[in-house]
């Protein structure tokens, strides 16, 4: 007969990936035996462990110490992708605001906008160089080379998923753009021809960062195009990011660790610089949009709720990239343990 502990254990086990459950068939038995005695501790332990296993199966957490460098670089690139989209949206918004304000805008803020643009350029060039380094490593790979891609895995599926999700994001951006709802995030970007494609993609991502999420009355009144972009955007962004991580992880590591380290430091440095430029904007224009809309109308540079949410997202993405950089820089070392010479003053 199945007890309630058995049923609860079976539910908890579903938090793990299916492949993991198949590898450890007796996990549920051990779990159901332990649950009645110390339920809170066991549940907390399972929630943490299963989350880590989910991330491991996605390739976001290194599975072996040797994978740390590769995974770290993948995390940096994956964080840089949405960061670049949000920052370009931010830059467009500031650019539009500055154009409206004319010469009365403070010089330091103009510098902040230029720094933001420069940091973005550095970040995008770094990401391109990173991709080129991976591509060169793949071309030069010799059989049996340490750090090479797993021959059983293919980059075709994640690359296809990445392109599909980016295409779908562009489509949702187009729907949002045609809905008639003005977005300053895309106003300063190309609106015609092939250059419009990244604009639509950015529009699709930026539409997800909206204060309408916490205002149900506004949410239901949004045009269908914006609503579609808001709902589909987070899922498509996650799919694009996860697919990119898989692509980067499955490509072979670059031949020089210094190249990886330089790319990671360059990307995170550029992201930190961009966040600094945004901070300058927020400090000089705290913004009252939403609380006192008439004041926001007099200040075209006021960030409003969305601006703050975007900056919070940028800070979070920089933190994630910094974690990835830490893995890249520490790929040759291992964690110190009790008994290690580094803790006991040498052997």
């Amino acid at each position, binding site marked *: 007969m199945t007890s309630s502990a058995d049923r609860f254990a079976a539910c908890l086990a579903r938090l793990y990936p299916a492949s993991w459950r198949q590898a450890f068939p007796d996990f549920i038995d051990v779990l159901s035996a332990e649950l009645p005695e110390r339920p809170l501790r066991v549940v907390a332990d399972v929630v943490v462990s299963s989350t880590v296993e989910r991330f491991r199966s996605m390739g976001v957490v290194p599975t072996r110490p040797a994978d740390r460098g590769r995974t770290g670089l993948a995390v940096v690139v994956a964080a840089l992708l949405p960061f670049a989209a949000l920052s370009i949206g931010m830059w467009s918004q500031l650019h539009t605001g500055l154009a409206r304000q004319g010469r009365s805008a403070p010089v330091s803020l103009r510098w902040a906008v230029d720094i933001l643009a420069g940091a973005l350029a550095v970040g995008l060039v770094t990401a391109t160089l990173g991709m080129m380094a991976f591509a060169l490593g793949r071309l030069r790979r010799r059989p049996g080379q340490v750090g090479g891609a797993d021959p059983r895995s293919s980059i075709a599926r994640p690359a296809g998923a990445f392109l599909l999700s980016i295409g779908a994001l562009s489509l949702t951006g187009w729907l949002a753009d045609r809905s008639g709802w003005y977005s300053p995030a895309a106003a300063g970007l190309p609106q015609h021809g092939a250059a419009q494609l990244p604009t639509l993609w950015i529009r699709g991502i930026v539409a997800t960062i909206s204060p309408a999420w916490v205002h149900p009355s506004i949410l239901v009144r949004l045009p269908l195009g914006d609503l579609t972009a808001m709902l589909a955007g987070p899922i498509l962004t996650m799919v694009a990011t996860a697919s990119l991580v898989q692509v980067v992880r499955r490509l072979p590591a670059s031949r020089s660790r210094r190249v990886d380290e330089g790319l990671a430091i360059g990307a995170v440095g550029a992201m930190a610089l961009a966040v600094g430029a945004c901070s300058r904007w927020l400090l000089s224009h705290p913004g009252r949009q939403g609380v006192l809309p008439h004041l926001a109308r007099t200040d075209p540079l006021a960030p409003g709720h969305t601006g703050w949410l975007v900056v919070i997202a940028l800070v979070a993405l920089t933190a994630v990239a910094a974690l990835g950089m830490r893995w890249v820089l520490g790929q040759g070392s291992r964690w110190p343990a*009790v008994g290690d010479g580094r803790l006991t003053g040498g052997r």
Partner: protein
Amino acid sequence: MPELADLGRYTGPATLILSSLAGGAKHGYALTKDVEQFSGVRLSPGTLYAALGRLVDQKLIEPVPSDDERRRPYRITAIGSAALQSQLSEQRRVADLGLRRLKGLVTP
């Protein structure tokens, strides 16, 4: 050769698991009971199986073929034995050092 220190926060549980498997192959529940008996540490299932997964990845332990599909016993490999030997020797060295220094602190 892989080192247990490479397992990060799972180094402690991995040392206990390998020490238990050094006495013979065991499945998950038997491992939990044995570790609790000889060390007083009760490994939670999430931690136990996370450590088992990493030990299998590092080829320090391996599953034993079994007729029972619901229970999969594990045994220590030669690499695992060497890694455990190295880890326990280090721990003994630190323990001996600490005890000697503590002895020096005790003044009449």
